[in-house]
C-alpha cells in the first residue's frame, strides 16, 4: 500500500513540475555560487512572502564576525504556498539558522536558501525551488 502512495506522489510531483508556472527571471547560477554552501545564524528582521521571489532578511554575523543584514532568496510566494508555507510562517525576531549558496557579489550579503531551521519550535524547511 505504501508503495502505491509513493508511486502516486511521484506521479503527482512529476506532473506538477511540468505544469506549475514558476517565476525565475534571473539565473541562479549567475547570481550565486551554486556549488558552495554557507551557514548563517541570527535574528529575523523581515520575511517577504512575495513574487517573484520571497526573501528572509536576517541580522547575522559574517565570516569575520561583523554583523550584517543578510538577504536570503527563497521560492516565490506561489511556490512556497504549495509547500504549505504562508506569510505568517516566520516572524520578525525569530532566531533561525539558514544554510544556502552564497551570492557571487560578497557585498550583497545574500544567499540562496537551501534550508532554514527555527530551533525554538523545530520549524524546518529544506525543500527545493526554481
Amino acid at each position, binding site marked *: 500500500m505504501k508503495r502505491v502512495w509513493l508511486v502516486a506522489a511521484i506521479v503527482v510531483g512529476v506532473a506538477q513540475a511540468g505544469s506549475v508556472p514558476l517565476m525565475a*527571471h534571473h539565473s541562479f547560477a549567475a547570481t550565486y555560487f551554486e556549488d558552495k554552501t554557507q551557514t548563517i545564524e541570527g535574528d529575523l528582521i523581515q520575511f517577504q512572502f512575495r513574487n517573484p521571489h520571497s526573501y528572509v532578511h536576517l541580522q547575522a554575523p559574517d565570516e569575520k564576525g561583523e554583523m550584517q543584514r543578510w538577504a536570503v532568496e527563497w521560492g516565490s510566494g506561489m511556490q512556497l504556498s504549495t509547500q504549505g508555507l504562508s506569510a505568517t510562517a516566520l516572524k520578525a525576531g525569530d532566531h533561525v539558522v539558514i544554510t544556502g549558496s552564497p551570492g557571487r557579489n560578497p557585498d550583497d550579503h545574500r544567499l540562496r536558501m537551501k534550508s532554514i531551521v527555527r530551533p525554538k519550535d523545530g520549524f524546518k524547511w529544506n525543500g527545493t525551488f526554481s
Partner: protein
Amino acid sequence: MHRIRIAQVVAFAVFAMLLSVPAFAQTDFSGMWGQRYYEDQEERAPGGELGDFTGLPLNDAARLRADSWDASLYGIAEWQCRPHSALYMWRSVHPVRIWNELDPITGEAIAIHANFQDLLERVVYMDGRAHPPEEGPHTWTGFSTGKWEGDMLTVNTTHLKEYIIRRDGVPVSDRTTMAEHWMRHGDFLTIVQIVTDPVYLTEPFIQSTDFILDTHLQFVPELCEIEEETDHPHGWVPHRLPGTVHDSDDFAKKHSLPAEAVKGGAETMYPEYRGKLKQVKP
C-alpha cells in the same frame, strides 16, 4: 432523376464542408501551452552558468558587456519586476496562453495574442498593417506582424528594447529584429526564433523551443511586488569591472573545455570548429 438527386447531395455536401472549414487561419494555436524542457532545461529553468557563451554568434562588444554584467541587477527595485522581452520570453519558465482575435463581421483572425502569465502579452497583427517608423517606441513586446506560410505562422518583430539573449548577461541591442516560425504538430508547439542584431551578433542566432497543449494548466497571474532586497544604498548599480572577474575561465575549467571555445562567436558554432579544438589545450 436518380442522377440529379446524387448531384444535389454531392453539391450540398461540398457546400456544407466549405461552411465548416476555417477560411483564414491555417493552424489554430489557441490554448494553454505548457513548457517542455526537452532541450536546454538548465537554461530555461534555473538559468545557465556565468561565462557560458557557447553557441552564440556574439562579437567582442557583446563579450565585454557580458563579462561586466552582474546578476545582482535583478535585485534592485527598478529591475525586480521587469518582464523578459518578447525575444527571451519563449525561453522562460512561463507558460503561454494563445488566442485569436477575430473580426466580428468576417470571422478573420486580425490578431493573435500570446500572453505569458500576465507578465507580457504580445500581439501579432495579422491584418497586413505596416511596422511603425524607426523612431517609434521600443517596448518589451516589440511590434509584431504575422503571415501564413502554409500551416506555419511566420512572425516578424521589430521595436524591441535592449535586453539579454541568455541569462548570463549576453546583450542584444534595441536594433534587434526577430523572425519566428510557429509550428504546431498535434498537441506540440515549436517556436523557431531567428534573432538578428547588427550591434552584438555577427550573424543570426537561431534556436527552437517546445511547448505542449495542456488543458489542465492553471493560469495563475504572478503579481510582482517591489521590495528592498539587499542592503545597498539607493542608486547603487551592480556591475563588474572588466578584468576583475574571470567567470568564463571558471566555466571552462569546470567543464574541461578550452577557454577560447566557451567565449562563443560564430566560428565556434559549426562542426568545422572541432578540428581547431583538437589543437587547443583545455
